[in-house]
């Protein structure tokens, strides 16, 4: 396992797409957080009463995660599909014929990288955005109740999306198809479910991967969103299911 993981780490850090995708992840997490926080501060006196009542000082700091999950998703898909696109999967399997071990090593390595990058991004986004709010309201610190949990939850959201992406890549083996499926589930499905008659729309929405992920980094309880632990449980279940299917398929199919 150690050798395979080391090999996958070498693979990951020696292609440029990794660097670009991770740079985009950091930039979008921090950049979008700053932009949205700044917008909120500048329209502070024009907010509706409902907005004032539902204000969460953490919400905009971590909003960039929604954009960052796209670059993490694409990179996760590419971890698998770039091997199939070039035919390099044959070379990989000639070095590591234990296919489930290989997939486990890929998921582990990629998840570790995403964990480090997204945790750093979320911490930076938090530390940059809170002082911006200070002009209007007391900013939060990491030691405030629930704050650290929300920041770590935001990073965890990205880690699980990344692991799902690797799994989808392993199942579909085609870059375009895997990215299309992943984005359809993360971006299109919520819009479609919202069109269902009430209360089905809200009942179902909270169990979608996108909502479950957002719930992980929520600092206050939002309607139609699971509590953080519930969000984690739901998204982790999706992740494990996708990876279990991927394990079965990579073991059985011809490479």
């Amino acid at each position, binding site marked *: 396992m150690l050798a395979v993981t080391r090999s996958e780490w070498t693979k990951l850090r020696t292609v*440029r797409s990794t660097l670009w995708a991770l740079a985009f992840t950091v930039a979008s997490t921090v950049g979008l957080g700053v932009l949205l926080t700044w917008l909120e501060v500048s329209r502070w006196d024009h907010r509706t009463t409902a907005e004032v009542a539902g204000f969460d000082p953490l919400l905009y700091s971590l909003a960039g995660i929604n954009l960052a999950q796209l670059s993490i998703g694409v990179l996760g898909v590419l971890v698998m599909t770039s091997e199939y696109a070039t035919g390099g999967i044959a*070379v990989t399997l000639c070095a590591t014929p234990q296919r489930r071990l290989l997939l486990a090593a890929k998921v582990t390595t990629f998840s570790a990288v995403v964990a480090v990058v997204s945790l750093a991004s979320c911490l930076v986004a938090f530390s940059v955005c809170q002082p911006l709010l200070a002009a209007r309201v007391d900013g939060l610190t990491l030691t405030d109740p629930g704050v650290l949990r929300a920041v770590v939850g935001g990073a965890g959201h990205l880690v699980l999306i990344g692991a799902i992406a690797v799994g989808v890549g392993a199942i579909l083996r085609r870059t375009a198809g895997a990215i299309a499926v992943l984005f359809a589930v993360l971006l299109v499905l919520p819009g479609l479910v919202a069109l269902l008659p009430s209360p089905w729309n809200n009942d179902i929405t909270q169990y979608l991967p996108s909502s479950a992920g957002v719930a992980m980094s929520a600092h206050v309880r939002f309607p139609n969103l699971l509590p953080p632990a519930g969000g984690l449980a739901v998204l982790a279940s999706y992740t494990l299911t996708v990876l279990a299917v991927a394990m079965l398929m990579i073991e059985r199919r011809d490479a």
Partner: protein
Amino acid sequence: MIEAGELCKRYGRTVAVDDLSFTVAAGQVTGFLGPNGSGKSTTMRMILGLDAPTSGSVRIDGRSFRSLRFPLREVGALLDAHAVHPGRTARNHLCWLADANAIPRARVEQVLAAVGLSDVAGRRVGVFSLGMRQRLGIAAALIGDPNVLLFDEPINGLDPEGILWVRRLLRSLADEGRTVLVSSHLMSEMALTADHLIVIGRGRLLATGSVADFIEGSAGHHVRVLTPDAGALATILRGKGATVAADGPDGLSVTGLESRDVGILAAGAGLTLYELSTQRASLEDAFMDLTREQADFRGGTGEPSAFRAVSAA
């Protein structure tokens, strides 16, 4: 040693490999010969555990490939020179392979030097020519210093110097006692490179044996005799079990006897010979003979009028 036993591979109703059994021995270069689409690559993929046989099995030194913990140290393979991420440098490509089987990084520089890629090791593979990619693929196959080596069409895209280099490399690997299996559709190349041949067509085993036996056993191999006493000589030779056919007014084409025996028999009977020669079939002839019925894609045997009619329409 590689042992394939009754290997079959079906894709739906298409049979790619059909009841194929063979042994690839250590210490010699074994050529794996067949027309395009005859199942060579599929067989190699089954040897390497990439594709699962529909039935049958294949063992490498007694074990299945997928049971090997660090296979690169035991089996090296070059399947497709293009199967490399174009954005990675040659050195980094070999580094991740070395890492995967806990092979020291120092070995990377060794194999880069061995294939003559040291100077371009820092360049991205995307800018490599096919010949450079073949060299990189060979470096990858050698990285674990394996005892068993498989090369699928290794000379594709190589210049004459590169071809010579590959030939010498295969020879030296075999001389070191390793098992070397090389696939090719180029019979002339195999005549120069291989000691032993496995010939397949449409997924079936057509012939196996030494290169020399292969040529001997082919229909084109015969003794040509020119004599004014063709009738008398033919009777004598037939009496010794040879097959004799007329070849021109004074000529005979003899199979089943060596030219030496024909000469002795003719002298014994006091017959005059104008010419006595062994006609060696080229490996090409022998190969064409064997695969005539099996070739999937054959060039048209001349119906230009039909072609013209289509073009004109």
